[in-house]
């Protein structure tokens, strides 16, 4: 699979470009459809960013989580344990290391989901 061409992110980019340049400007799209096509185009861009940026964001999150949660294996297992620790009070909700981790995680997620929210393009 890794050697199949074009790459997955490139496929998404081309499909998105097709919708933006060939479909959206077409006559006959009512407001509702036009709106939904725009949303769909944004989702394609989002998935493309996730494929390109996701692995590095995951690795960074996993590294930060390992410093905060010793048990559990996967990111989602560690997040489950961390969430419980915060709720039960064994991890302080104002712990600076925790808050720094959470802020970085949100920023990395927004770079994928909606970089404009960070003031980026």
């Amino acid at each position, binding site marked *: 699979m890794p050697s199949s061409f074009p790459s997955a992110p490139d496929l998404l980019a081309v499909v998105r470009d097709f919708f933006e340049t060939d479909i959206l400007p077409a006559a006959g799209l009512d407001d509702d459809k036009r709106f939904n096509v725009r949303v769909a185009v944004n989702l394609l861009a989002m998935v493309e960013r996730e494929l390109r940026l996701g692995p590095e964001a995951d690795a960074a999150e996993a590294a930060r989580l390992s410093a905060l949660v010793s048990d559990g294996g996967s990111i989602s297992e560690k997040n489950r344990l961390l969430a419980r620790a915060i709720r039960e009070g064994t991890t302080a909700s104002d712990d600076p290391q925790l808050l720094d981790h959470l802020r970085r995680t949100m920023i990395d997620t*927004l770079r994928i989901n909606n970089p404009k929210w960070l003031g980026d393009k």
Partner: protein
Amino acid sequence: MEALGIKTGQADVAAKLRDAVARLLGPPGDILELRRLTAGATKATWAFKAQVGNASLPMVLQLSNGPSRSGDDAALPLVAGREDAALMMAAAQAGVPAPPVRGVLTEECGLGQGYIMDYVAGETIARRILREPIFAPLRASFARQCGEILARIHRMEAKSVPFLTPFAAPRQIALYRSIYDRYDHPVPALEVAFRWAEDHLPATTGETVVHGDFRMGNLICGEEHIRAVLDWELACLGDPMQDLGWLCVKTWRFGGPGAVGGIGERADLFSAYERASGMVVNPAHVRFWEGWGCIKWAIICLMKGQSQRSVEAFAIGRRMEEPIHDFLGGSF
């Protein structure tokens, strides 16, 4: 086939609407230019022109599906149908700009629950209201107008809307926490946020009618004035400061620089509200509701991402991290 289905639905609505208009407003009731404005899972909005006597009246039909909602929508206290109409009429009586309700549907209308109201011309799209030069006069007094309108909403007599659910801060936090728990999708940042909310509950609170979703996007605006307040379905009895806080939540600034709807300043909102209501606004108290507003919107995004499989709902699901980011950064 799908197009045929929509046409059939539209013709069916037109026929029943004609009878409803003739009965509720007056004959003949002919319907022209019927078009669907929105179509959600639980409600639909149609615009049309109705022939009543010699006049051709621009109107809106608001339909709601009533109590058979599934999942978490059922947990939230929502105002719909006849009660929604009664609430808007009570608001109008209290001097709040609300779309005039002209008739409430009955069972024999065959359209389910809903009501007919006047079409109020104006703009609701934030991008236009924030940027277009013709709205400059509105922008100059937007925060002040919001303060005045909210003061009138909070002065409404609770007796006139006895169906509203009490929904003060502790109950809201508990309800949204239970919704979050039910999804079993643990988010450490939300645990921090819920803890913050519980630790910062306002010490005192009034209990008034609360709009619940008063924000840019739900206001029909003219070039100088806010003409109508829409979307009353989240109304409840609770802390009036909730409405001031929600209005300033970063998401509802739509990228604009001002705290109030992306346009105005909190100081102007608060002073206008104080003048109109006779109450003193504690900024820290409002700040609680801005922070809680971030958390609430994040949970709503979570709900949307897990609800119907549609492009729009899933896209909202992926917005959950925006308000969490705002909350953690204290930029609310």
